[in-house]
């Protein structure tokens, strides 16, 4: 069940009609959230429920054991890590690692067949496995570090783990924040509901109008169906992809936050206009914030962070980014995507070159271009295709501009997406624009226009890109 579907609309109507009647008893709210979330997740494939149940049960009991049996806390923590990362390895990485091993053996003239021996069930990637595994892991890590008291109520735990708005594609919420929120009974006021509706409308607009309308242009380019080539063509395709992935994922996060807000809960911001960043470091504080902070808190800082000198800091940064690349998928292309970011981030940290520009808006297109080049490998089917596209971007060859007419339906929405970001930039940086926006109460008109666009300008309904992770 995806947010941009009639099924979800019916599900959400049913959920929010019943929600106010659950009253002050936490247990009824937790039961309702858990059952509804399992229904939501099971809609894809009910067999996936066993995995989330198993993963959740391991962490629920391990966390209790860490608390109750301090002498064996390391053992139970290890058990939780093995359970979560084991499941992730089997379902997400088994094929990749088997291929790497096969290739390695082949270099020494040993012909080993590993991929074909992987059981069929392990080749199916359960939706959102990386998201809920990391969420579940953060719970046991925090309990192990003594930063969180484990909950004794299993429904309390599962309502945190399986909370449907963010279950399959985040934002990755922290147990420390959210278990407390789940304990409280809150009736949402009018303003909160309005803000929730606004988030849902803008989120759906980003997904259904911007991202979905861009997909034809991008998919046909990467699948080699368009027949177009050349520098201008590939630049436009990659700009479109940069905005597609942003609108797709940011749209999902906004909808998730809006749904939670309507229930009376608060999820932290996951995207904060990352393409307006003036350094790559800033980009990573604005892009997929919940994952970036997860890696910062549980990997980067655990590896020493920047406290132990520049070299340790850079090594920690490299390891964290490479793991982040691998988190996205078991492909060399994701590792190259991460490696590009590592190189650029290290260069930026060592040379501090962005300071040469002060606060100049010129930095925005420069940082965007860096992110765009890395996106090539994120989207490419394989490294060879990625290399070819990068070569097209940087070695000039003429393009047949007929693609503009053929893909006008997509290019129009790319223009709209850029215009919206430009307006956001103006609003953030120019007091007069901010005041005008605030005084004219534009929100009301914009939400109505977003709804109209969702109804009449939506693209072909597509799955959210981040579901595959």
């Amino acid at each position, binding site marked *: 069940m995806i947010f941009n579907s*009639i*099924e979800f609309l019916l599900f959400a109507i049913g959920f929010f009609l019943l929600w106010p009647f659950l009253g002050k008893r936490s247990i009824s709210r937790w039961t309702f959230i858990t059952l509804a979330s399992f229904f939501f997740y099971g809609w894809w494939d009910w067999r996936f429920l066993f995995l989330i149940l198993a993963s959740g049960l391991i962490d629920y009991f391990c966390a209790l054991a860490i608390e109750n049996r301090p002498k064996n806390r390391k053992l139970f923590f290890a058990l939780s890590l093995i359970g979560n990362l084991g499941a992730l390895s089997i379902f997400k990485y088994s094929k990749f690692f088997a291929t790497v091993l096969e290739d390695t053996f082949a270099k020494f003239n040993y012909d080993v067949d590993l991929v074909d021996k992987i059981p069929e069930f392990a080749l199916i990637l359960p939706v959102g496995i990386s998201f809920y595994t990391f969420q579940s892991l953060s719970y046991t890590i925090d309990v192990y570090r003594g930063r969180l008291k484990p909950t004794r109520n299993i429904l309390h735990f599962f309502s945190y783990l399986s909370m449907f708005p963010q279950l399959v594609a985040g934002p990755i919420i922290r147990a420390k924040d959210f278990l407390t929120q789940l304990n409280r009974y809150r009736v949402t006021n009018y303003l909160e509901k309005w803000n929730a*509706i606004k988030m849902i409308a803008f989120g759906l607009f980003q997904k259904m109008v911007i991202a979905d*309308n861009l997909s034809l242009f991008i998919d046909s380019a990467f699948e080699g169906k368009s027949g177009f080539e050349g520098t201008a063509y590939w630049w436009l395709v990659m700009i479109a992809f940069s905005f597609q992935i942003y609108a797709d994922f940011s749209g999902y996060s906004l909808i998730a936050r809006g749904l939670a807000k309507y229930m009376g809960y608060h999820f932290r911001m996951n995207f904060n206009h990352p393409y307006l960043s003036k350094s790559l470091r800033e980009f990573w504080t604005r892009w997929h914030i919940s994952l970036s902070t997860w890696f910062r808190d549980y990997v980067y800082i655990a590896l020493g962070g920047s406290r132990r000198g520049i070299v340790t800091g850079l090594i920690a940064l490299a390891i964290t980014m490479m793991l982040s690349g691998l988190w996205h998928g078991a492909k060399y292309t994701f590792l190259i995507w991460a490696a590009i970011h590592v190189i650029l981030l290290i260069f930026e940290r060592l040379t501090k070159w962005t300071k040469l520009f002060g606060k100049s808006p010129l930095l925005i297109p420069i940082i965007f271009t860096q992110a765009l080049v890395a996106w090539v490998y994120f989207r490419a089917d394989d490294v060879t295709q990625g290399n070819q596209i990068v070569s097209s971007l940087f070695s000039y060859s003429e393009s047949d501009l007929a693609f503009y007419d053929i893909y*006008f*339906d997509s290019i*129009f*929405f790319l223009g709209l997406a850029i215009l919206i970001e430009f307006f956001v930039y103006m609003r953030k940086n120019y007091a007069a624009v901010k005041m005008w926006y605030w005084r004219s109460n534009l929100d*009301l*008109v914009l*939400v*109505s*226009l977003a*709804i*109209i666009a969702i*109804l*009449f*300008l*939506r*693209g*072909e309904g597509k799955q959210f890109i981040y579901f595959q992770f």
Partner: protein
Amino acid sequence: MSSLTVLLVVCVKLFLPAPIKNTELRNEFWLRKTFASPDYDLVVGGDSRIYRGVSTTAINSELSPKLQAINLGYSSAGYDLEYLNFLVSRLNPAGKRILVLGITPHSFTLEGAKNDLYHEHLDKGTFEVFKALYLSKYLKHFAPYKATELKVYVLNGTSEEGYFEDFQADGWAHSHRLPEDSLTAIEIYQKLFTDYQVSDTLIFNFFNRISEIENSGIEVIAFRPPTFELMTNVEDSLSGYNEAFMRNEMELRGCTWIDLNPAEFHTYDGSHLHYKSAEHLSKRIGQEVEKLLADKP
């Protein structure tokens, strides 16, 4: 906010023409075919030349009494055994049992035999099918527009340019294109037949299955949908299709082959019949069916 939104919806519905491609109706159209009930006297099969070229309502206009009939043609459909069996399975065992097959070279290529569109809809989930069959009558009012349509509408004050199709309940898509260009499809087919040729295996299996179908008492009527002359030449010269052989083999198995004069028909892109010609073709088929029924004891 809700009043403003409703007002805007009303404005869109009042001031903009209906979208050229109604995706909700399109989805419903294909799913109604894919999940059609097995109670038809006459079933029509074939590729896009058939789903755009044969109206069973027009066939029925030549018949008395009328038959329960449906067009189960799909875009790029090919005659593999699964598709043939699907067509046969939609015939009512207690009905007249007439199978009308549109024969095109493409429908005997391995590319056609993938039957992608048929499978795409066959694989749709239960809710998707339910939505298309029961909710599309409401959802069709919210069919999305393309940016191109709006551009043309804003610049020219009309959106009467492009490909238009109007999906009919009998499985026929009433279609035309403005402006017309008989050469549009030629290049596509030239490339297609460079990559894919008519498959001997497919033809062999097709004839075997046709013999079985005829032996089971089903009447098979076949014809080659008329196209632009240059298109016919391209197909005959590049695809490996042999019309005389096909006709001969079909007739040997007891099928009725309809001869058509291409000069009587008009295509809008070199491949597909303009809706007026489609109605004309359908009536010709209707006359053959009427003759067949009259001869049947």
